């Protein structure tokens, strides 16, 4: 599974972007990300949130697997808790890649 992750906005608007290939991750982190995706069901909600709260985070996440590619764009305020957990997990992976 390939994931393109982007987080922009927030008070500082320091963008956090990463291309994550779960096949390249250690087994425990691959499993954890897949669990978060399964739990969040990111594509069962509106693709584009209408909410725009000042200094909110804006997320754009594209997930590609054998069945195709889908993209979700939403904000921290609009996302349900399970989706926020997924964004946190992807954000940690992105930071890890940046620092490596």
């Amino acid at each position, binding site marked *: 599974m390939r994931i393109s992750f*982007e987080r*922009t*906005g*927030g*008070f*500082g*608007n*320091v*963008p956090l972007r990463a291309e994550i290939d779960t096949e390249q991750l250690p087994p425990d982190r691959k499993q954890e990300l897949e669990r978060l995706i399964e739990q969040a069901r990111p594509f069962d909600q509106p693709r584009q949130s209408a909410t*725009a*709260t*000042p*200094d*909110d985070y*804006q997320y*754009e996440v594209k997930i590609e697997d054998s069945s195709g590619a889908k993209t979700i764009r939403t904000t*921290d*305020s609009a996302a349900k808790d399970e989706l926020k957990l997924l964004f946190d997990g992807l954000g940690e992976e992105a*930071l890890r890649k*940046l*620092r490596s």
Partner: protein
Amino acid sequence: MVYGDGDGQIFQRFTKIIDVIGHELTHGVTQYEAGLVYQDQPGALNEHFSDVFGSLVKQYAKTQKAKQADWLIGEGIFTPNVHGTALRSMKAPGTAYNDPVIGKDPQPAHMKDFVNTTSDFGGVHINSGIPNKAFYELAIALGGNAWEKAGKIWYRTLLDKVQPNTQFTQCAAMTYEVAGTLYGTGSTEQKAVKASWAVVGIAVGTTLAAATAGGRR
């Protein structure tokens, strides 16, 4: 309105910096007085007004004149891991940080460098550098305490003129009109407003039509 506790890796706690508090509270004023849409140019103006009054709160608290102020937004917000002094600079947009991990401050200081993007709600924290620079130029030109004249022009503009979809050029025309109302047509203050917007590539003062058409009262 979102503050945030920081992540400990890039950012420290956002609530410890006075201009951040002023910035966030200004979003409340903007929401109720102007209702600026948080997207593209109106969103960048929304961010701009918050940076202006955030900075003025800091200058007022430190009793600093315009020339003494650092005009930084979020000074000291970064952890020691990051190479940068602040998140944004109103005096020199694009120079607040330059770090091998998080990158460089992306703010432009002139319309020729305007950034078209879908990220960050259409670059609201990016293109705000353009009006931020114009305000800084005005405050320096007028001298003294920035909140007394430059801040007053901007505050009356936000309260009386700005509308949900106001664009940069319209906002500039509105500040020019307000400066004329407050200090007189052709006054030093009004001329300084025009000159300050010219520094960032926005021409005003040739017609008041945009401001008049955009005014609410």
